Each structure stands twice: as C-alpha cells, then as structure tokens.
C-alpha cells in the first residue's frame, strides 16, 4: 500500500540533482530580489562568483568560512545518524572556543606541535561537555534534544558574556575581550604554510584549521561507516526497535553521538580564534552553528556532501560580502537575505521539488529504480 508521493528517486538524483535544483531555485528567487532593488541580477552573480573564487584573497576567505561550516556541518551529521537533531552547534562552538582560549592563554608557550593537539583536545572537550548536558537529559529523562540544545545556546551566550565581561577581560580594557594569545599559540596561516614550500599565497585568514577540518571529514566517515561502534550508532538512529533487538543501548548511542557532535562543533574556535581573531571575543561563532544545519541537510549527512555544501556556503558568505561592497543598492542585509534564501530552499524546503521530480522519473521510466516487490 503506497500512497502517492512515496516514490523514490534514483541515488544520483537524490544526491546531486535535487540539491542542484534547490540551489538554482534559490538563486532565481534571489535574482528576483536583486532585480527588485534595481540592480542587475546577472551582474550581481558575476560579482559574487568573482568575489568568492576570482582571486587568491577571495579563495582564501571562501575556504576560511568553509572551515567553520565543515566543523558544524559534521557535528549536525553525527548527531543525525544517531537519530538526533543537534541545534546546539552554535553554543557548543562558543563554549569550545572558551576551552581553546584557556589553553592558548595558559599553555601557549609550549612548542606549537605539542600545543596544537592540546588545543584541539581542549576545544573538543569543552564542546562535548556542553553537548553532554542535553545528551544526558535525552538519554535518561527523555527531554527532547531539539529543545534542550536551543536552550543551551542561550545559556552558552550568557555564560560567555559573563566570563568575558567579568573574568577573562584583559586588564585595562574597555571592550569585553580576552588578552591576545601568545604568538606561539597561533595557527600557521595558509600564506606561511605555502611559503614554507616555496609557493606564494596572499594574506588571508585561511589557516591550518582547514586541513584539520578535512581530516575531521575523513575521521567522521571512518567512524560512522568503518567501525563497529559507528554501525551500532547508526542502527540506534535508524531503528530503535532494531537497536533493542540487537542489544544496542540507545541511551549510550545518544550520549556518544552528542559528545562527538559537540567536540566537532567545539573546533570552530581553532579556525576563528587561533587562526584569525587571535584572542577570545564575544559572538565569534557568528551563526556558523546554524549554517551547519543547512550544510548537513544539503550534504545528505555524508562527509563528502558536507564538503561540497560547506564550500557552497563559504562561497556565498565571501561572495556576498564582496557584493555589498560593490553594489550601491545591495547592502549587508540583502546579502543575508540571499544567504537565507539558500538556507531556506536547500535546508528547510529541501523536499519541495522531491515529489514533482519523483513523478517525472516515474513517468519517463528510469532503469535505476528496481523495486524487488510491491
């Protein structure tokens, strides 16, 4: 008994065609908005593309933003595979940044290659600790993780404001910022790293964290699809009944998945703080935790898809800011609106085109669909 709409798409359409169509639709609507304010949509897209990829500087910034979205996108994906929707990436990244900053401020004089793993561990640990509370509440008390992680975002914000205003503020400072990190605790920039091997790259915030984020993609893939533990986690997420039958504890899966999720989100500070800001400031996460949700949705919760989606959002961020410089009628708010459209179409309304597309595939028969029964 299959009602209409229960049809399925072939794999490649689900993975590539549908996201591409969603993106095109989002850009079409964005084009209409740009035209409405009296600018040329084509010119705007050209400016955005050039801003994101047209120069070393553009590419550097694009990949810098991509790094944040990789961490938060992976964080959402790991929780998702255990059957949970972690909305708390923003707060976990924020608190993770606290751990990284404390490490930098106190241990920054260590040799860098000893300090780096410590900083990663500190960020991951603080992020995981922040995720552990909703995880425990879900596993033991059944409190819904969507609700509790949202609340934890506000708590993170309040906690960090308190700490920065009252505790971590640099002596003699007016603005709530920590003291600058010691030089030895800073992430090597892409310019410095490429310079070491004799390549010239212009000065951008892009830094070693990008490679760490790529490593995290590989690690998440390995963990979820090539370990017994990842298998158990995915079973718990896909079918609680099958988990109970197989002797897999859903509570343990929830807690472990959320710890890893929080740890991944907690690494945003490596890029933003050690890589670019060089001290702890208010609101350094800047919404990357929420963009991670759209990135994970669009990337189908798979590291490769997340890489593509994070790159897209990185380009949108960088291209968008270029656009607001160059077009008099396009201000920062309009750029945010365009980014919002992409999030809306690729994230929230992800299934909008699914049913019509499936109907098209059903009509013009396709050999990829081969159900083995009715």
């Amino acid at each position: 008994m299959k009602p209409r709409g229960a049809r399925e798409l072939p794999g490649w359409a689900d993975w590539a065609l549908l996201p591409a169509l969603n993106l095109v639709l989002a850009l079409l609507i964005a084009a209409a908005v740009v035209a409405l304010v009296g600018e040329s949509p084509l010119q705007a897209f050209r400016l955005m593309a050039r801003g994101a990829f047209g120069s070393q500087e553009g590419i550097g910034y694009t990949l810098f933003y991509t790094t944040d979205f990789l961490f938060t996108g992976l964080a959402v994906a790991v929780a998702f595979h255990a059957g949970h929707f972690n909305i708390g990436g923003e707060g976990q990244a924020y608190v993770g940044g606290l751990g990284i900053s404390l490490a930098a401020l106190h241990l920054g004089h260590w040799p860098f290659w000893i300090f780096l793993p410590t900083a990663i561990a500190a960020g991951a640990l603080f992020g995981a600790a922040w995720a552990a509370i909703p995880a425990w509440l879900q596993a033991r008390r059944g409190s819904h993780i969507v609700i509790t992680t949202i609340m934890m975002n506000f708590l993170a914000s309040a906690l960090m404001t308190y700490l920065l205003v009252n505790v971590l503020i640099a002596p003699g400072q007016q603005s709530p910022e920590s003291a600058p990190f010691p030089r030895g605790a800073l992430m090597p920039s892409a310019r410095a790293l490429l310079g070491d091997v004799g390549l010239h790259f212009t000065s951008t915030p892009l830094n070693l964290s990008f490679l760490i984020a790529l490593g995290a993609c590989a690690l998440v893939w390995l963990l979820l699809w090539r370990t017994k533990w990842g298998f158990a986690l995915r079973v718990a997420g896909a079918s609680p009944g099958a988990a109970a039958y197989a002797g897999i504890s859903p509570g343990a899966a929830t807690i472990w998945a959320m710890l890893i999720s929080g740890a991944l989100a907690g690494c945003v500070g490596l890029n933003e703080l050690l890589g670019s800001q060089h001290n702890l400031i208010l609101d350094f996460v800047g919404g990357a935790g929420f963009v991670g949700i759209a990135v994970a949705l669009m990337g189908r919760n798979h590291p490769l898809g997340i890489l593509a989606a994070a790159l897209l959002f990185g380009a949108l961020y960088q291209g968008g800011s270029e656009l607001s410089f160059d077009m008099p009628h396009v201000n920062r708010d309009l750029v945010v609106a365009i980014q919002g459209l992409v999030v809306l179409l690729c994230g929230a309304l992800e299934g909008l085109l699914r049913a019509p597309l499936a109907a098209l595939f059903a009509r013009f028969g396709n050999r990829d669909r081969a159900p083995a029964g009715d």
Partner: protein
Amino acid sequence: MTNPAEAPAGAPPPALELLGVDKRFGPVHANRAVSLRVAAGTVHAIIGENGAGKSTLMNIVFGYHQADDGEIRIHGRPARIRRPHDAIEAGVGMVHQHFMLVEAFTTLENIVLGAEGGLRLADGLAGARASLERLAADYGLAVPLDRPVGELPVGLQQRVEILKALHRGASLLILDEPTAMLTPGEADQLFALLRRLRDEGKTVLLVTHKLREVMAVSDRVTVMRQGAVVADLDTRSTSPAELAEKMVGRAVQLQVERTPSKPGAVLLEARSLDLRDRHGIARLRDVSFALHAGEIVGIAGVAGNGQTELLEVLAGMRRPDAGEIHLGGRDLVSCGLGPRERRALGLAHVPEDRLAAGLVGAFPAWENALLGYHHRAAYGTGPLLSPSVAIAECGRRMETFDVRPRLPRLRASAFSGGNQQKLVLAREIESSPSVLLVGQPTRGVDIGAIEAIHRRLLQLRDAGKALLLVSVELDEILGLADRILVMHDGAIVGERPGDGASEREIGFLMAGGRPGSA
C-alpha cells in the same frame, strides 16, 4: 489467458470491469494487460504472492496510481479515476490493511471525517448518526459510535472502516488483506459480514494471499502472478492445491512432511516468569516451560496474549519482574544478561516484527546481516568494521537461503516480505545457535517462501536445536510443533502434543475456555 465469462443478456453490468490495464514502474512491469470482471452482488477474491501486482491493481482502481493503458468500468460506465476522491464518487470504498483512523476520535467523528457536511459539525454528526444507525441495522454492523476508536479491538476498528466506506455510498468494497490483524474468530465474523453485504446487494473485492480465506468466503477467484491474470475460477470448482500451484507457478507442498521428534536434554528453561507493563497490567503470569534439544515447541494464542512479551523477555529485550531463565547452566535474569550476551550463549531470535526489529530497512542487506553480531571479531579487527568480509558472507548466505535478488548492497526495504524474512533467518540460523526463538516466521510471506522457511526450521530441529515457535497462524503451529503450549491472558493455559491436537480444542483454549468444559 483471461477470459471472463460473457454476462447473460439482461443481467446487471459487472460492478467492476478492467480491460487491458497496464502499468509499469520503470523496468518493473507491475500489471500486464490485466482484464478482470467482478460480477455485481458477489464476493470476488484476487489472490497472488507478494509482488504479483494485486496491490498495484487495487491502487489503480482506487486512484493512487494511474494506469499507463487500459480502461476501468464501474457498473458498466467507463470511469476516469485520477485520485481516491473520484473512486469514492464512483461508489468504490477501500478498507486498507493498515487502518486509516484517528485513534483519539470517536467512531462517529472518524466516519464523518472528510465528509462533515457543512460548517456546523453538530448538524453533520447528527445526520451521520441517523444514517449510520440505519446502516448498522441493515447489515448487522453494530459498533459503539461514541467511543474513541483507539479503545476498540482491531476487529471492530475494521468494521468502522467498512461502515465508513458504506456511509460514503460505496457499492463496491475493496478489502486489502483484511485478516492480517485479526484473530481466527474475528476473521470468521468478518466473513459472515461480507456474506451478508453480498446478500444485500453489495459487491466485495477481497485482496489476499491466504488460500483459506478465498475458499471460505469468495464466489469467484482471480489468480495473479508476475503482474498478469493467470486464472479466473469459480471457487466451488477449485481447491487450495490448485490455487497454490497457479499462484506460484509450480506444485507446492502446503504441509511440510515431519518425522517424529527425538527430544534430548533441556536447553532452555523458563521458571515462573512474571511481567507487568508500564500501566501495571500483568502481561506474563507465572510462565514456566522447558525447551528440549531436537524439538519445536509452539506457542498458540490470539495475538496480544503475552506471546510478544514472552519472546522479548526470553531474548533479553525486556526484564521480567520475577522468574528465572536458565540457559547453559546460568540464570540469565539474575546475571542481568542482555541480548548480546545471550547471543554469545547460543540463543538466537527471529523477532515477530522483522521491519521494526529484525531489520533496518534503510540499511543494505549486508549491514543487516551483521545486526546483533557486528561486534564479532570475524567482521573486523578491534573496533574496525570490514565491509568486504561481511558483503562476501552475505552473498554466500543469499545463495544458501535463496534470497532474491542476490544483491548484498540492496537496502533491506527493497526486498519482498519473504526475502526479508529469509535474510533474518539466514543471519540467526548461520550464527549456529543452540536455541532459536522464532516469532511469526511467515507473516506476510509468499507461499513458496513459507515452504522453504518451514523446511529450514524442521532441519534445525532435526539437527538437535531447540526451537520456540510463536505464531498466530494456528495451521503453522499444528504443522510444525512437537508440543503446543496455549497462551491466554499472559498465562499458559494448556499443553497438547503436536500430533493429534485438534484445531477446535486449541482454538477453544486460545479463547480462554477451560480444559474439560469444551
């Protein structure tokens, strides 16, 4: 080879006539030029294995799918059915296998749902109440109108669905696998109701894969295989064996041959198991029995009398409130052993609901072949999981157990019910258990696969394993079990030897009758 008999002159036009209905889903030819004639005022059965195209055909008649080609005529008039609404307008009602009811709403509210008749709900409800009371009187279809549907037993919920269809003016009633959820007694009541509907002039189209139902209630039967009609027969002039052969395309043994059992040592023993659910209602009451090597013990009972809970308690998915389970010289309950530890001790489990527990539908077959055993060293060193080993092993098992299609990478939900069940059986049997718990091994499984599954279970018994078989199909218990325990209201109310047990006597115990007073 469809050749519906020509209607005699002057007779009413057939209630439903399909002419050359053809439907493809991509490469799958679901319906091949199906022609069918359902005479008005009859009970007509469509029988076929899963995947034979019956459901697709009914979905076309009810407007869920559009045929690629062909014509539908209802009461002689060509009908253009693009959505369920059109079908209802044309006088077609459908009762789905899984009911489409809002459990928190009353019967009356469910029946008017979607046809409230204007803005004021009270008027619509009053009008509906009057017409429903009339319908109930006409067809002997009494249901409590003002109780929430969720509180009604399954048999009554089905009546609500039938009443809903009649209330919408259905003259042709399609029932899809109507007895899948019913007890034998409820099924008999349903058949009586269907006969009464027929006698009052309604037409009933029964979609099923159970031979017994066809023989019990239908006037005519159409057999489908691989999307096409392969036979159209008068029920009185056919037999279950003939129908089975036409469905499967070869001769089928409905009853697998069984040699007498040679019971050995006790392998598993349950002592005084008690279980209460969250609401404090007793689900198991003082359940004790022993399972010997080389025997199949069947648990007969109407669904919901504690069989599910018994399997879960034995498998370690639930903790009993009291009692002991002895396996391999240990009490599993007091040792606090879970499903994983019990598997290690040689206790395998084929769960009752393969889609909710036995398999993860979205995962490929090879990953499902690991479920419950994924931590074993054979599947990868330490924490690592090695897909190549598991895929190769899954491929071999598919060969041994004749799972089709033989694609370890195909997701489990894409297999038919029988093949899914074989995947579960393969996993549990290949783990070489000493005790196998089996719940509803052939629910929703094709006749051809049932035969193969029954053979496997008997082979296992003959190899000296102990099997506990829970099934709501009494035929299955009678055909396989060496001893039969009857459960009623959480307690074992009787034990009979498998050979020579009478269906009537077991059925009497299942219904809560006391031994000796039958």
